Protein backbone atom coordinates (compact mmCIF):
# COMPACT_ATOMS: atom_id res chain seq x y z
CA UNK A 1 0.00 0.00 0.00
CA UNK A 2 1.51 3.36 -1.07
CA UNK A 3 1.61 6.49 1.03
CA UNK A 4 -1.34 8.00 -0.85
CA UNK A 5 -3.49 4.91 -0.32
CA UNK A 6 -2.64 5.11 3.37
CA UNK A 7 -3.57 8.79 3.36
CA UNK A 8 -6.94 8.01 1.79
CA UNK A 9 -7.67 5.46 4.52
CA UNK A 10 -6.28 7.49 7.43
CA UNK A 11 -8.14 6.72 10.66
CA UNK A 12 -10.05 9.82 11.77
CA UNK A 13 -8.64 9.41 15.28
CA UNK A 14 -5.27 10.61 13.92
CA UNK A 15 -7.00 13.76 12.70
CA UNK A 16 -8.55 14.26 16.14
CA UNK A 17 -5.21 13.66 17.85
CA UNK A 18 -3.27 16.12 15.69
CA UNK A 19 -5.94 18.79 16.12
CA UNK A 20 -6.01 18.26 19.89
CA UNK A 21 -2.20 18.47 20.14
CA UNK A 22 -2.10 21.65 18.05
CA UNK A 23 -4.94 23.26 20.05
CA UNK A 24 -3.36 22.44 23.43
CA UNK A 25 0.10 23.54 22.26
CA UNK A 26 -1.11 26.86 20.84
CA UNK A 27 -3.13 27.54 24.01
CA UNK A 28 -0.36 26.69 26.46
CA UNK A 29 2.59 28.33 24.69
CA UNK A 30 2.22 32.11 25.00
CA UNK A 31 2.98 34.12 21.87
CA UNK A 32 1.38 37.09 20.15
CA UNK A 33 -0.17 37.06 16.73
CA UNK A 34 -0.73 40.28 14.80
CA UNK A 35 -4.35 41.40 14.60
CA UNK A 36 -5.29 43.72 11.76
CA UNK A 37 -8.56 45.53 12.09
CA UNK A 38 -11.25 45.70 9.40
CA UNK A 39 -13.70 48.53 8.59
CA UNK A 40 -16.72 46.50 9.80
CA UNK A 41 -15.44 46.26 13.38
CA UNK A 42 -13.70 49.65 13.29
CA UNK A 43 -17.11 51.27 12.71
CA UNK A 44 -18.46 49.86 15.99
CA UNK A 45 -15.39 50.86 17.99
CA UNK A 46 -15.36 54.39 16.55
CA UNK A 47 -19.08 54.83 17.19
CA UNK A 48 -18.79 53.89 20.86
CA UNK A 49 -15.55 55.80 21.32
CA UNK A 50 -17.16 58.99 20.00
CA UNK A 51 -20.10 58.91 22.44
CA UNK A 52 -20.03 61.44 25.30
CA UNK A 53 -20.12 60.15 28.92
CA UNK A 54 -23.66 59.45 30.13
CA UNK A 55 -25.00 58.27 26.79
CA UNK A 56 -26.83 54.96 26.79
CA UNK A 57 -25.76 51.91 24.78
CA UNK A 58 -28.20 49.00 24.49
CA UNK A 59 -26.45 45.61 24.43
CA UNK A 60 -28.49 42.50 23.63
CA UNK A 61 -26.76 39.35 24.88
CA UNK A 62 -28.63 36.86 22.71
CA UNK A 63 -26.41 33.80 22.88
CA UNK A 64 -26.16 30.61 24.85
CA UNK A 65 -23.06 28.91 26.30
CA UNK A 66 -22.60 27.12 22.92
CA UNK A 67 -21.32 30.39 21.47
CA UNK A 68 -19.39 31.39 24.55
CA UNK A 69 -15.96 31.03 22.94
CA UNK A 70 -16.71 33.51 20.16
CA UNK A 71 -19.24 35.92 21.64
CA UNK A 72 -18.34 36.21 25.32
CA UNK A 73 -15.02 37.97 24.50
CA UNK A 74 -17.00 40.48 22.40
CA UNK A 75 -19.26 41.24 25.35
CA UNK A 76 -16.27 41.71 27.64
CA UNK A 77 -14.45 43.98 25.17
CA UNK A 78 -17.46 46.16 24.24
CA UNK A 79 -18.91 46.50 27.74
CA UNK A 80 -15.55 47.29 29.34
CA UNK A 81 -14.99 49.94 26.65
CA UNK A 82 -18.42 51.45 27.38
CA UNK A 83 -17.90 51.56 31.12
CA UNK A 84 -14.38 52.96 30.90
CA UNK A 85 -15.90 55.72 28.74
CA UNK A 86 -18.55 56.21 31.48
CA UNK A 87 -21.39 55.25 29.18
CA UNK A 88 -24.49 53.64 30.63
CA UNK A 89 -25.56 50.23 29.40
CA UNK A 90 -28.97 48.58 29.12
CA UNK A 91 -28.69 44.80 28.83
CA UNK A 92 -31.26 42.29 27.65
CA UNK A 93 -30.87 38.57 27.09
CA UNK A 94 -33.48 37.21 24.70
CA UNK A 95 -32.11 33.68 24.37
CA UNK A 96 -32.99 31.12 27.03
CA UNK A 97 -29.58 30.81 28.64
CA UNK A 98 -28.67 34.42 27.95
CA UNK A 99 -29.41 35.80 31.45
CA UNK A 100 -26.74 33.57 32.97
CA UNK A 101 -24.23 34.71 30.36
CA UNK A 102 -25.09 38.38 30.91
CA UNK A 103 -25.02 38.02 34.68
CA UNK A 104 -21.60 36.37 34.57
CA UNK A 105 -20.19 39.00 32.19
CA UNK A 106 -21.52 41.89 34.31
CA UNK A 107 -19.94 40.44 37.47
CA UNK A 108 -16.56 39.80 35.80
CA UNK A 109 -16.34 43.15 34.01
CA UNK A 110 -17.42 45.04 37.17
CA UNK A 111 -14.50 43.37 39.00
CA UNK A 112 -11.98 44.24 36.29
CA UNK A 113 -13.07 47.89 36.39
CA UNK A 114 -12.08 48.26 40.03
CA UNK A 115 -8.42 48.76 39.10
CA UNK A 116 -6.74 51.64 37.24
CA UNK A 117 -5.71 50.83 33.66
CA UNK A 118 -4.15 52.53 30.68
CA UNK A 119 -5.67 52.04 27.23
CA UNK A 120 -4.15 53.60 24.12
CA UNK A 121 -2.06 55.86 26.34
CA UNK A 122 -5.04 57.21 28.28
CA UNK A 123 -5.30 56.41 31.99
CA UNK A 124 -8.68 55.30 33.29
CA UNK A 125 -9.29 55.40 37.04
CA UNK A 126 -10.79 52.27 38.53
CA UNK A 127 -14.32 52.67 39.84
CA UNK A 128 -17.19 50.64 41.20
CA UNK A 129 -19.91 49.76 38.72
CA UNK A 130 -23.27 50.37 40.33
CA UNK A 131 -26.42 48.53 39.33
CA UNK A 132 -29.13 50.97 38.33
CA UNK A 133 -26.65 53.81 37.83
CA UNK A 134 -24.14 52.40 35.34
CA UNK A 135 -26.28 49.62 33.95
CA UNK A 136 -29.75 48.18 33.93
CA UNK A 137 -30.20 44.50 33.17
CA UNK A 138 -33.72 43.88 31.89
CA UNK A 139 -33.40 40.08 31.77
CA UNK A 140 -35.15 37.49 29.63
CA UNK A 141 -38.65 37.19 28.24
CA UNK A 142 -39.76 34.58 25.70
CA UNK A 143 -40.82 35.42 22.11
CA UNK A 144 -38.03 37.79 21.18
CA UNK A 145 -39.73 39.39 18.17
CA UNK A 146 -42.60 40.59 20.35
CA UNK A 147 -40.22 41.80 23.04
CA UNK A 148 -38.21 43.80 20.49
CA UNK A 149 -41.45 45.34 19.18
CA UNK A 150 -42.72 45.99 22.71
CA UNK A 151 -39.50 47.75 23.74
CA UNK A 152 -39.95 50.06 20.76
CA UNK A 153 -43.11 51.37 22.45
CA UNK A 154 -41.79 51.40 26.01
CA UNK A 155 -39.16 49.29 27.80
CA UNK A 156 -41.67 48.98 30.65
CA UNK A 157 -44.17 47.03 28.50
CA UNK A 158 -42.23 43.78 28.31
CA UNK A 159 -40.04 44.55 31.35
CA UNK A 160 -41.98 46.28 34.13
CA UNK A 161 -39.09 45.34 36.44
CA UNK A 162 -35.41 44.69 35.82
CA UNK A 163 -33.83 41.23 36.16
CA UNK A 164 -33.46 41.72 39.91
CA UNK A 165 -37.09 42.67 40.47
CA UNK A 166 -36.66 46.45 40.81
CA UNK A 167 -39.44 48.41 39.03
CA UNK A 168 -37.91 50.23 36.04
CA UNK A 169 -39.27 53.56 37.25
CA UNK A 170 -37.20 53.13 40.42
CA UNK A 171 -33.98 52.48 38.47
CA UNK A 172 -31.98 55.73 38.47
CA UNK A 173 -30.57 55.51 34.94
CA UNK A 174 -33.96 54.56 33.44
CA UNK A 175 -35.63 57.83 34.48
CA UNK A 176 -36.66 59.52 31.25
CA UNK A 177 -35.62 56.52 29.20
CA UNK A 178 -38.74 55.35 27.41
CA UNK A 179 -37.71 53.38 24.35
CA UNK A 180 -35.00 53.08 21.66
CA UNK A 181 -35.23 56.84 21.00
CA UNK A 182 -33.18 57.45 24.15
CA UNK A 183 -30.36 55.01 23.35
CA UNK A 184 -27.35 55.91 21.20
CA UNK A 185 -27.20 52.50 19.52
CA UNK A 186 -28.15 48.86 19.86
CA UNK A 187 -25.45 46.19 19.68
CA UNK A 188 -26.81 42.69 19.22
CA UNK A 189 -24.38 39.92 20.17
CA UNK A 190 -26.09 36.85 18.83
CA UNK A 191 -25.53 33.25 17.86
CA UNK A 192 -28.90 32.64 16.20
CA UNK A 193 -31.97 33.94 14.44
CA UNK A 194 -32.67 36.68 16.99
CA UNK A 195 -30.45 38.89 14.82
CA UNK A 196 -33.05 38.75 12.01
CA UNK A 197 -35.69 40.02 14.43
CA UNK A 198 -33.45 42.89 15.54
CA UNK A 199 -32.99 43.90 11.89
CA UNK A 200 -36.60 43.44 10.73
CA UNK A 201 -38.66 44.36 13.80
CA UNK A 202 -36.16 46.57 15.60
CA UNK A 203 -34.08 48.59 13.16
CA UNK A 204 -36.62 48.31 10.35
CA UNK A 205 -39.45 49.71 12.41
CA UNK A 206 -37.77 52.02 14.93
CA UNK A 207 -34.77 53.07 12.86
CA UNK A 208 -32.06 53.05 15.55
CA UNK A 209 -28.35 52.54 14.78
CA UNK A 210 -27.73 48.79 14.98
CA UNK A 211 -24.45 46.87 15.05
CA UNK A 212 -23.98 43.12 15.19
CA UNK A 213 -21.58 40.76 16.91
CA UNK A 214 -21.96 37.36 15.29
CA UNK A 215 -20.43 33.91 15.24
CA UNK A 216 -17.96 33.27 12.41
CA UNK A 217 -20.34 31.08 10.41
CA UNK A 218 -23.14 33.65 10.55
CA UNK A 219 -21.10 36.62 9.42
CA UNK A 220 -21.32 36.13 5.63
CA UNK A 221 -25.13 35.98 5.88
CA UNK A 222 -25.41 39.51 7.26
CA UNK A 223 -23.19 41.39 4.80
CA UNK A 224 -26.20 42.58 2.71
CA UNK A 225 -27.49 44.55 5.70
CA UNK A 226 -24.12 46.27 6.03
CA UNK A 227 -24.22 47.25 2.36
CA UNK A 228 -27.77 48.58 2.66
CA UNK A 229 -26.94 50.66 5.74
CA UNK A 230 -29.38 48.82 8.03
CA UNK A 231 -26.47 47.98 10.30
CA UNK A 232 -23.40 50.13 10.78
CA UNK A 233 -20.91 47.45 11.80
CA UNK A 234 -20.24 43.73 12.20
CA UNK A 235 -17.89 41.89 14.50
CA UNK A 236 -17.44 38.47 12.94
CA UNK A 237 -16.52 35.59 15.24
CA UNK A 238 -13.47 35.45 17.44
CA UNK A 239 -11.52 37.55 14.93
CA UNK A 240 -14.07 40.38 15.29
CA UNK A 241 -13.72 40.22 19.07
CA UNK A 242 -9.91 40.18 18.80
CA UNK A 243 -10.05 43.20 16.49
CA UNK A 244 -12.15 45.08 19.04
CA UNK A 245 -9.70 44.15 21.81
CA UNK A 246 -6.86 45.37 19.61
CA UNK A 247 -8.56 48.73 18.95
CA UNK A 248 -9.51 49.15 22.60
CA UNK A 249 -5.93 48.22 23.61
CA UNK A 250 -7.42 45.67 26.00
CA UNK A 251 -6.05 42.23 25.10
CA UNK A 252 -8.20 39.48 26.57
CA UNK A 253 -9.80 36.15 25.81
CA UNK A 254 -10.25 36.81 22.08
CA UNK A 255 -6.61 37.54 21.34
CA UNK A 256 -5.67 34.50 23.39
CA UNK A 257 -8.22 32.36 21.55
CA UNK A 258 -7.03 33.57 18.14
CA UNK A 259 -3.82 31.57 18.60
CA UNK A 260 -5.82 28.37 18.96
CA UNK A 261 -8.23 29.25 16.14
CA UNK A 262 -5.43 30.15 13.77
CA UNK A 263 -3.58 26.86 14.23
CA UNK A 264 -6.80 24.81 14.19
CA UNK A 265 -7.64 26.45 10.83
CA UNK A 266 -4.16 25.69 9.53
CA UNK A 267 -4.57 22.02 10.52
CA UNK A 268 -7.94 21.86 8.73
CA UNK A 269 -6.45 23.51 5.60
CA UNK A 270 -3.54 21.05 5.78
CA UNK A 271 -5.92 18.09 5.90
CA UNK A 272 -8.03 19.44 3.03
CA UNK A 273 -4.92 19.90 0.87
CA UNK A 274 -3.47 16.50 1.79
CA UNK A 275 -6.83 14.81 1.25
CA UNK A 276 -7.12 16.34 -2.22
CA UNK A 277 -3.57 15.39 -3.20
CA UNK A 278 -4.30 11.81 -2.13
CA UNK A 279 -7.59 11.87 -4.04
CA UNK A 280 -6.02 13.08 -7.31
CA UNK A 281 -3.06 10.69 -7.14
CA UNK A 282 -5.32 7.71 -6.41
CA UNK A 283 -7.68 8.70 -9.22
CA UNK A 284 -4.75 9.08 -11.64
CA UNK A 285 -3.43 5.61 -10.70
CA UNK A 286 -6.86 4.01 -11.07
CA UNK A 287 -7.22 5.65 -14.50
CA UNK A 288 -3.78 4.35 -15.57
CA UNK A 289 -4.59 0.83 -14.33
CA UNK A 290 -7.81 0.86 -16.37
CA UNK A 291 -5.92 1.95 -19.49
CA UNK A 292 -3.34 -0.86 -18.99
CA UNK A 293 -5.99 -3.52 -18.43
Amino acid at each position, binding site marked *: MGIFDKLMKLDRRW*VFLLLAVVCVWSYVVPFDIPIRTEPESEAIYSFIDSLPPGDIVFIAIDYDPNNLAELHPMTYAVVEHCWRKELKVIFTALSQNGP*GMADQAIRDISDSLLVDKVYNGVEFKGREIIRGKDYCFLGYK*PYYALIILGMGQDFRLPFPTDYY*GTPLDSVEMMKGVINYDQVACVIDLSGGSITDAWISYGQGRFNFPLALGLTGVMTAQYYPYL*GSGQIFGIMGGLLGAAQYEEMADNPGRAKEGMRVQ*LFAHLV*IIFFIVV*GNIGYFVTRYRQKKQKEVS
Partner: protein
Amino acid sequence: MKRQLPFVLVFIFGLFMMFQYFVPHEISEWIYEFLLDWIVIIGIFALALGLWSLFRVSVDKIKMRKDNWGYSYITLAGLFVMVAFGFTHRVADAWGLYFIWILLSLLCLGSLMQLRAATNSRQKKMYFASALILLILSTLVAVFDDTWRFYFYTAEGLENSMFRAFFDYILLPILSTMFALLAFFIASAAYRAFRARNVLATLLLLAALLVMIRFNPWIQGDEAWASKASNWLMNVPNLAAQRAIVIGIGLGIVATALKVILGIERGYMGKG
Protein backbone atom coordinates in the same frame (compact mmCIF):
# COMPACT_ATOMS: atom_id res chain seq x y z
CA MET B 1 -69.21 27.83 12.94
CA LYS B 2 -66.40 25.81 14.55
CA ARG B 3 -64.31 26.27 11.38
CA GLN B 4 -65.57 29.73 10.36
CA LEU B 5 -64.78 31.54 13.62
CA PRO B 6 -60.96 31.00 13.51
CA PHE B 7 -60.90 32.18 9.86
CA VAL B 8 -62.84 35.33 10.71
CA LEU B 9 -60.58 36.07 13.71
CA VAL B 10 -57.41 35.51 11.65
CA PHE B 11 -58.78 37.73 8.86
CA ILE B 12 -59.71 40.60 11.22
CA PHE B 13 -56.54 40.54 13.33
CA GLY B 14 -54.29 39.89 10.32
CA LEU B 15 -55.67 42.92 8.48
CA PHE B 16 -55.55 45.02 11.65
CA MET B 17 -51.87 44.23 12.28
CA MET B 18 -51.09 44.98 8.63
CA PHE B 19 -52.71 48.42 8.62
CA GLN B 20 -51.80 49.28 12.20
CA TYR B 21 -48.17 49.64 11.08
CA PHE B 22 -49.17 52.73 9.08
CA VAL B 23 -51.55 54.27 11.65
CA PRO B 24 -49.73 55.99 14.53
CA HIS B 25 -53.01 56.89 16.33
CA GLU B 26 -53.28 56.47 20.11
CA ILE B 27 -56.10 53.91 19.93
CA SER B 28 -54.32 51.88 17.27
CA GLU B 29 -51.15 51.86 19.43
CA TRP B 30 -53.15 50.81 22.51
CA ILE B 31 -54.77 47.88 20.70
CA TYR B 32 -51.40 46.89 19.27
CA GLU B 33 -49.79 46.83 22.75
CA PHE B 34 -52.79 44.92 24.12
CA LEU B 35 -52.40 42.29 21.40
CA LEU B 36 -48.67 41.98 22.05
CA ASP B 37 -49.43 41.22 25.69
CA TRP B 38 -51.92 38.58 24.61
CA ILE B 39 -49.41 36.86 22.36
CA VAL B 40 -46.94 36.60 25.27
CA ILE B 41 -49.66 35.22 27.56
CA ILE B 42 -50.71 32.61 25.00
CA GLY B 43 -47.05 31.75 24.43
CA ILE B 44 -46.54 31.02 28.12
CA PHE B 45 -49.15 28.26 27.84
CA ALA B 46 -47.01 26.75 25.08
CA LEU B 47 -44.07 26.81 27.50
CA ALA B 48 -46.13 24.94 30.11
CA LEU B 49 -47.18 22.48 27.43
CA GLY B 50 -43.51 21.92 26.54
CA LEU B 51 -42.66 21.19 30.17
CA TRP B 52 -45.55 18.77 30.48
CA SER B 53 -44.51 17.08 27.24
CA LEU B 54 -40.91 16.65 28.49
CA PHE B 55 -42.23 15.20 31.74
CA ARG B 56 -44.57 12.77 29.95
CA VAL B 57 -41.94 11.61 27.45
CA SER B 58 -39.43 10.98 30.27
CA VAL B 59 -41.97 9.17 32.42
CA ASP B 60 -43.11 6.99 29.50
CA LYS B 61 -39.50 6.13 28.71
CA ILE B 62 -38.96 4.96 32.28
CA LYS B 63 -42.26 3.13 32.35
CA MET B 64 -41.64 1.25 29.08
CA ARG B 65 -37.96 0.65 29.95
CA LYS B 66 -36.96 2.02 26.53
CA ASP B 67 -33.30 2.33 25.48
CA ASN B 68 -31.27 4.50 27.88
CA TRP B 69 -34.29 4.94 30.15
CA GLY B 70 -31.96 5.64 33.08
CA TYR B 71 -31.02 9.01 31.58
CA SER B 72 -34.65 10.12 31.88
CA TYR B 73 -34.16 10.17 35.65
CA ILE B 74 -31.28 12.62 35.13
CA THR B 75 -33.47 14.78 32.83
CA LEU B 76 -36.26 14.90 35.40
CA ALA B 77 -33.85 15.48 38.28
CA GLY B 78 -32.18 18.34 36.36
CA LEU B 79 -35.53 19.92 35.58
CA PHE B 80 -36.77 19.63 39.15
CA VAL B 81 -33.53 20.76 40.81
CA MET B 82 -33.14 23.89 38.63
CA VAL B 83 -36.76 24.88 39.30
CA ALA B 84 -36.46 24.12 43.02
CA PHE B 85 -33.30 26.21 43.43
CA GLY B 86 -34.73 29.03 41.30
CA PHE B 87 -37.58 29.34 43.81
CA THR B 88 -35.56 29.65 46.99
CA HIS B 89 -34.19 32.77 48.62
CA ARG B 90 -31.41 31.07 50.56
CA VAL B 91 -27.87 32.22 49.99
CA ALA B 92 -24.40 31.43 51.35
CA ASP B 93 -24.57 29.17 54.45
CA ALA B 94 -28.22 29.73 55.26
CA TRP B 95 -29.38 26.59 53.49
CA GLY B 96 -30.81 24.81 56.55
CA LEU B 97 -32.58 21.62 55.47
CA TYR B 98 -33.15 22.74 51.86
CA PHE B 99 -30.85 20.09 50.37
CA ILE B 100 -32.57 17.39 52.42
CA TRP B 101 -35.95 18.64 51.17
CA ILE B 102 -34.71 18.48 47.56
CA LEU B 103 -33.30 14.98 48.08
CA LEU B 104 -36.52 13.71 49.68
CA SER B 105 -38.63 15.28 46.91
CA LEU B 106 -36.44 13.72 44.22
CA LEU B 107 -36.64 10.30 45.87
CA CYS B 108 -40.43 10.72 46.12
CA LEU B 109 -40.56 11.58 42.40
CA GLY B 110 -38.39 8.54 41.62
CA SER B 111 -40.67 6.28 43.67
CA LEU B 112 -43.69 7.58 41.75
CA MET B 113 -41.92 6.81 38.44
CA GLN B 114 -41.12 3.32 39.67
CA LEU B 115 -44.73 2.92 40.81
CA ARG B 116 -45.93 3.64 37.27
CA ALA B 117 -43.38 1.19 35.87
CA ALA B 118 -44.12 -1.57 38.43
CA THR B 119 -45.54 -4.75 36.97
CA ASN B 120 -46.76 -6.73 40.01
CA SER B 121 -48.86 -5.71 43.00
CA ARG B 122 -46.06 -6.33 45.51
CA GLN B 123 -43.79 -3.86 43.76
CA LYS B 124 -46.65 -1.39 43.40
CA LYS B 125 -47.39 -1.52 47.14
CA MET B 126 -43.72 -1.10 47.98
CA TYR B 127 -43.22 1.94 45.74
CA PHE B 128 -46.53 3.47 46.84
CA ALA B 129 -45.53 3.15 50.49
CA SER B 130 -42.07 4.62 49.89
CA ALA B 131 -43.51 7.52 47.83
CA LEU B 132 -46.02 8.25 50.60
CA ILE B 133 -43.39 8.16 53.36
CA LEU B 134 -41.02 10.37 51.36
CA LEU B 135 -43.85 12.82 50.58
CA ILE B 136 -44.76 13.08 54.28
CA LEU B 137 -41.11 13.55 55.22
CA SER B 138 -40.48 16.23 52.60
CA THR B 139 -43.68 18.04 53.62
CA LEU B 140 -42.60 17.95 57.28
CA VAL B 141 -39.16 19.32 56.37
CA ALA B 142 -40.77 22.02 54.21
CA VAL B 143 -43.15 23.09 56.98
CA PHE B 144 -40.62 23.10 59.84
CA ASP B 145 -37.77 24.61 57.81
CA ASP B 146 -39.94 27.22 56.03
CA THR B 147 -38.88 25.85 52.63
CA TRP B 148 -42.15 26.75 50.97
CA ARG B 149 -41.49 30.45 50.63
CA PHE B 150 -41.15 31.17 46.93
CA TYR B 151 -38.73 33.88 45.88
CA PHE B 152 -38.60 33.28 42.16
CA TYR B 153 -38.09 36.41 40.06
CA THR B 154 -36.87 38.51 42.94
CA ALA B 155 -33.33 39.65 43.57
CA GLU B 156 -33.00 37.13 46.40
CA GLY B 157 -34.20 34.15 44.37
CA LEU B 158 -32.05 34.79 41.32
CA GLU B 159 -28.93 35.57 43.30
CA ASN B 160 -28.89 32.37 45.29
CA SER B 161 -25.51 30.76 45.02
CA MET B 162 -26.68 27.25 44.03
CA PHE B 163 -28.72 28.49 41.04
CA ARG B 164 -25.68 30.40 39.81
CA ALA B 165 -23.34 27.50 40.55
CA PHE B 166 -25.49 25.11 38.51
CA PHE B 167 -25.32 27.52 35.58
CA ASP B 168 -21.65 28.49 35.89
CA TYR B 169 -20.21 25.07 36.71
CA ILE B 170 -22.58 22.56 35.09
CA LEU B 171 -24.68 23.97 32.23
CA LEU B 172 -22.08 26.37 30.84
CA PRO B 173 -19.17 23.86 30.58
CA ILE B 174 -21.46 21.12 29.22
CA LEU B 175 -22.90 23.26 26.42
CA SER B 176 -19.62 24.89 25.45
CA THR B 177 -17.82 21.53 25.45
CA MET B 178 -20.47 19.99 23.20
CA PHE B 179 -20.05 22.85 20.73
CA ALA B 180 -16.24 22.77 20.93
CA LEU B 181 -16.26 19.09 19.94
CA LEU B 182 -17.55 20.21 16.54
CA ALA B 183 -14.03 21.38 15.66
CA PHE B 184 -12.84 17.76 15.63
CA PHE B 185 -15.71 16.55 13.48
CA ILE B 186 -15.30 19.48 11.08
CA ALA B 187 -11.59 18.65 10.68
CA SER B 188 -12.37 14.99 10.03
CA ALA B 189 -15.28 15.76 7.69
CA ALA B 190 -13.22 18.34 5.77
CA TYR B 191 -10.48 15.78 5.26
CA ARG B 192 -12.87 13.12 3.98
CA ALA B 193 -15.51 15.04 2.07
CA PHE B 194 -13.97 18.29 0.84
CA ARG B 195 -12.70 16.95 -2.50
CA ALA B 196 -12.38 18.72 -5.85
CA ARG B 197 -14.54 16.11 -7.64
CA ASN B 198 -16.01 18.49 -10.26
CA VAL B 199 -16.00 22.18 -11.23
CA LEU B 200 -18.61 23.25 -8.68
CA ALA B 201 -16.96 21.32 -5.86
CA THR B 202 -13.60 22.87 -6.82
CA LEU B 203 -15.09 26.38 -6.74
CA LEU B 204 -16.61 25.68 -3.32
CA LEU B 205 -13.31 24.31 -2.06
CA LEU B 206 -11.31 27.30 -3.28
CA ALA B 207 -13.83 29.76 -1.87
CA ALA B 208 -13.78 28.01 1.50
CA LEU B 209 -9.99 27.98 1.61
CA LEU B 210 -9.80 31.67 0.72
CA VAL B 211 -12.36 32.66 3.34
CA MET B 212 -10.59 30.54 5.96
CA ILE B 213 -7.31 32.19 5.08
CA ARG B 214 -9.07 35.56 5.44
CA PHE B 215 -9.49 34.84 9.14
CA ASN B 216 -5.77 34.18 9.41
CA PRO B 217 -4.25 37.27 11.06
CA TRP B 218 -0.85 36.74 9.40
CA ILE B 219 -2.11 37.17 5.86
CA GLN B 220 -5.01 39.55 6.20
CA GLY B 221 -5.04 43.26 5.48
CA ASP B 222 -5.67 45.33 2.38
CA GLU B 223 -2.34 44.63 0.70
CA ALA B 224 -2.55 40.82 0.86
CA TRP B 225 -3.89 39.02 -2.21
CA ALA B 226 -5.74 36.48 -0.08
CA SER B 227 -7.48 39.23 1.80
CA LYS B 228 -8.43 41.03 -1.42
CA ALA B 229 -9.76 37.86 -3.00
CA SER B 230 -11.76 36.81 0.04
CA ASN B 231 -13.16 40.32 0.53
CA TRP B 232 -14.27 40.24 -3.11
CA LEU B 233 -15.89 36.86 -2.50
CA MET B 234 -17.72 38.17 0.57
CA ASN B 235 -18.77 41.49 -0.96
CA VAL B 236 -19.71 40.47 -4.50
CA PRO B 237 -20.85 36.86 -5.08
CA ASN B 238 -21.81 36.28 -1.44
CA LEU B 239 -23.65 39.59 -1.18
CA ALA B 240 -25.53 38.99 -4.45
CA ALA B 241 -26.57 35.47 -3.44
CA GLN B 242 -27.54 36.51 0.09
CA ARG B 243 -29.59 39.46 -1.23
CA ALA B 244 -31.43 37.16 -3.62
CA ILE B 245 -32.14 34.73 -0.78
CA VAL B 246 -33.29 37.48 1.60
CA ILE B 247 -35.59 39.05 -1.00
CA GLY B 248 -36.94 35.61 -1.92
CA ILE B 249 -37.64 34.79 1.72
CA GLY B 250 -39.27 38.19 2.23
CA LEU B 251 -41.61 37.72 -0.75
CA GLY B 252 -42.38 34.19 0.44
CA ILE B 253 -43.30 35.47 3.90
CA VAL B 254 -45.63 38.12 2.40
CA ALA B 255 -47.29 35.53 0.15
CA THR B 256 -47.74 33.05 3.02
CA ALA B 257 -49.11 35.75 5.35
CA LEU B 258 -51.64 36.81 2.69
CA LYS B 259 -52.66 33.19 2.15
CA VAL B 260 -53.19 32.75 5.91
CA ILE B 261 -55.18 35.99 6.23
CA LEU B 262 -57.37 35.12 3.22
CA GLY B 263 -57.98 31.59 4.49
CA ILE B 264 -56.21 29.85 1.60
CA GLU B 265 -53.49 28.39 3.83
CA ARG B 266 -55.15 26.52 6.70
CA GLY B 267 -52.20 24.57 8.10
CA TYR B 268 -52.52 26.29 11.50
CA MET B 269 -55.93 24.58 11.91
CA GLY B 270 -54.18 21.23 11.62
CA LYS B 271 -55.94 20.42 8.33
CA GLY B 272 -53.45 21.42 5.61
